[in-house]
């Protein structure tokens, strides 16, 4: 075991992690621990844009953006946080541009902007051009630009290091983390005063997902096992336009540029569900509309469970200039030519609105009274600020990670300057060693891949776009069985070098934890709101459920639920129509 000491650590090198690292490395000794090389992070897969009310192509205001974010989130958004994010959005975008991000431009050389789902002018009157973009690879350009800035600042990266445990002292103060070096199998203890978790999402618990294989909820699970609750885990976004069967994302920008969604009869059905903004309705509504069409027999494909995204009527130059990547995905993976024919699509598990609860400085907070955990931070998809509430608007994830990555980094630097290094617990790597040795020590047992597949198939069938008491209860019992089998998992690779077999098994444990929290929170929430739709409770219930869920893990592995109020502001919850 090697021990390292830093002022601050960032776990995860996607957009939020690197944005925090840029902020930290200017003032305190910082290291970034990442299980992937930074440019492999899934921020790079984001396509359509990042919103800010720059008003470059038409009138716009941060206040309109805040309203859309809050309404889009079905009023589970903490309103002061959303207002802060949309105000700071403007400088955050200019900052990215000054760092070299190659945004598409207007004829007069300013950052170009386009339409996106749920983003409107004058509180829902009409779609507005708010999304700043770089073709359909905006996330790629954000990730590259942030990495370039890290290179410029000589940020210290520990690449292909997996975070396996959070260390806290007796008072609960953050003391560091334990990490596993993939190249050697060695354990490393990193001591630090501030630790920022920025590990991304956990979409890999579902069969159809836009998420990378790496998105296994490592950060949320690691802190959950150390007493931190997880907030609003039932709020998961199912993006309506995943490539059929595969789940690979086809950006909402396709609809922003004029693409439409069709059923098997060629009907543009969103005209019935959202008469004002039609195909540009928020993602949860479009996904549910697709489900409704399928249920009523108007789905296409061999199993009748597809809809179709049609961009064939768009100007080929628009497709070439603004949507090149997604066009290529359809060509390569489904052998469909989007300039000539509609592309088969299916809702795909896309984004976790819930996660590690934080305040607007990225500080992790526990319980209804939001007690700060000294030195512990989270930012990006693994965090829940909450700016996305029950349904995130397109583009707001990239905005979230630059705004709150920066804020978390700033406060983590402040804390690292003020605080003392917390003492390490005795044998800090003991728990991890025991966990790994248990898996490595078994010569026979269950297969991790089989367990993962059953998890993914069942979550897709029982906890996806449409949920019910019956289905979620069944899912909980499935999870109980999978958990038992997980405790008997054996692997074939026992080597020390690049043991991805071992790490995939550890990641499966994280997915099971996140699924436990998601299903437990979803079963309790007997209403429908945003991405959480209960067919047995189809209406939103503000009287009882205008509150955030907090899921805790008990020592025996069971879940305890608690709640905290939504931070309200100027916007009174109203019926969500578009």
């Amino acid at each position, binding site marked *: 075991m090697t021990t390292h000491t830093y002022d601050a650590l960032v776990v995860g090198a996607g957009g939020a992690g690197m944005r925090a690292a840029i902020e930290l490395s200017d003032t305190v000794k910082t290291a970034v621990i990442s299980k992937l090389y930074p*440019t*492999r*992070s*899934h921020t*790079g*897969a984001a396509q359509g844009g990042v919103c800010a009310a720059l008003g470059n192509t038409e009138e716009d205001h941060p206040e309109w953006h805040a309203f859309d974010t809050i309404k889009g989130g079905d009023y589970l958004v903490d309103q002061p946080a959303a207002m802060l994010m949309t105000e700071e959005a403007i400088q955050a975008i200019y900052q990215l*541009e*000054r*760092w*070299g991000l*190659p*945004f*598409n*431009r*207007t*004829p*007069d*050389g*300013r*950052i170009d902007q386009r339409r996106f789902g749920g983003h409107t002018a004058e509180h829902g009157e009409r779609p507005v051009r708010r999304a700043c973009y*770089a073709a359909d690879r905006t996330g790629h*350009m954000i990730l*590259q630009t942030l990495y*370039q*800035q890290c*290179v410029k600042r000589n940020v210290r990266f520990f690449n292909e290091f997996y975070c396996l445990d959070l260390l806290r002292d007796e008072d609960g103060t953050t003391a560091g983390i334990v990490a596993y070096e993939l190249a050697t199998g060695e354990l490393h203890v990193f001591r630090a005063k501030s630790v920022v978790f920025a590990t991304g999402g956990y979409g890999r618990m579902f069969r159809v997902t836009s998420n*990378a*294989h790496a998105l296994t909820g490592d950060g949320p699970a690691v802190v959950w096992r150390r007493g931190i609750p997880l907030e609003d885990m039932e709020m998961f976004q199912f993006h309506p336009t995943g490539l*059929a*069967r*595969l789940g*690979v994302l086809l950006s909402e920008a396709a609809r922003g540029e004029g693409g439409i969604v*069709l059923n*098997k009869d*060629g009907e543009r059905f969103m005209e019935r569900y959202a008469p004002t903004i039609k195909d540009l309705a928020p993602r949860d509504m479009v996904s549910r509309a697709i489900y409704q069409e399928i249920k009523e027999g108007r789905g*296409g*494909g*061999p*199993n009748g469970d597809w809809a*179709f995204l*049609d961009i*064939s009527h768009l100007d080929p130059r628009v497709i070439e200039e603004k949507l090149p*990547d997604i066009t290529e*995905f359809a060509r*390569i*993976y*489904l*052998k*469909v030519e989007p300039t*000539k*024919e509609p592309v088969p699509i299916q809702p795909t598990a896309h984004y976790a609105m819930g996660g590690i609860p934080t305040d607007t400085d990225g500080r992790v907070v526990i319980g209804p009274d939001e007690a700060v955990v000294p030195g512990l931070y989270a930012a990006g998809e693994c965090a829940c600020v909450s700016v996305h509430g029950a349904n995130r608007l397109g583009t707001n994830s990239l905005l979230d990670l630059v705004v709150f990555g920066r804020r978390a980094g700033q406060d983590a630097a402040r804390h690292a300057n003020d605080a003392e290094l917390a003492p390490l617990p005795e044998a800090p790597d003991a728990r991890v060693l025991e966990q790994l040795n248990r898996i490595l020590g078994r010569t026979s047992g269950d*297969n991790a*891949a089989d367990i993962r597949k059953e998890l993914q198939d069942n979550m897709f069938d029982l906890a996806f776009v449409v949920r019910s008491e019956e289905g979620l209860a069944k899912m909980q019992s499935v999870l109980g069985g999978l958990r038992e089998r997980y405790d008997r998992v054996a692997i074939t*690779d026992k*080597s*020390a*070098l*690049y043991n*991805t*077999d071992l790490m995939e098994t550890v990641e499966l444990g994280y997915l099971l934890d996140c699924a436990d929290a998601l299903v437990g929170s979803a079963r309790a929430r007997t209403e429908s709101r945003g991405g959480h739709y209960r067919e047995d409770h189809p209406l939103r219930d503000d009287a009882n459920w205008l509150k955030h869920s907090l899921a805790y893990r008990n020592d025996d592995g069971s879940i305890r639920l608690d709640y905290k109020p939504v931070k309200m502001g100027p916007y009174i919850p109203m019926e969500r129509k578009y």
Partner: protein
Amino acid sequence: MATAAEALNASDDQRVGTKPGAMTLAVRVRRFNPEVSQDSWWDEWTVQCEPLERLVEVLHQIKWHHDGTLSFRRSCAHGICGSDAMLINGRNQLACKVLAEDVGPKVTIEPIRGLPVLKDLIVDMDPFMDEYRAVLPFLINDSGEPDKERRQSPEDRHRYDDTTKCILCACCTTSCPVFWGDGGYVGPAAIVNAHRFIFDSRDEAGRERMKILSEKTGVFRCRTTFNCTDACPRGIQVTKAIQEVKRAILFERF
């Protein structure tokens, strides 16, 4: 153009590959594990897969159900993260952008060349990233920061569009015979990333980068074999970008 309804029906045919186990694929992989042997060896598996199955998922099928020790990098599985560059049937490609039907019924997979192999298909990426870092791959502009965005015309933006697509997968650099033969060459990917800034109208350090690339390890090592352009999974005209940097150095025009 077909009507929407006709096109929808067309999309329903079996090209969209829904029949499981529709083809047999023999997968031959060059293995290496220094804990087992100092020499590499070959393993071969025969698997059933869908014609439209991505090769990376075929490798997963082997890893998850036949041999858990098979090691390779992957993440996004749709050609964006750049983790799974491999030498597939003699050509550098991303395993997630190659479909079974494109390579079947036999496929040979080896690690990309020119970088030290660490285990199976995993190579040491650090030398590659060191070359990338050497070309100052970040915007340099000391003329003071504007309150808003810097202006850039759509034409100026278009000038360097192609080279912004790079995902640092190393397909180009590790397909280059000059890079294999001489560890001193910075390689195509580093030049692509220098190009991205040299031709960005907002950047002021083009001369510094060109000085670095005019050194003996730099751009004039390129012998214009076009392997890099053929290998790029993002469709970047890599050789063209290298030629543009050469010309800029020779004529100081950029």
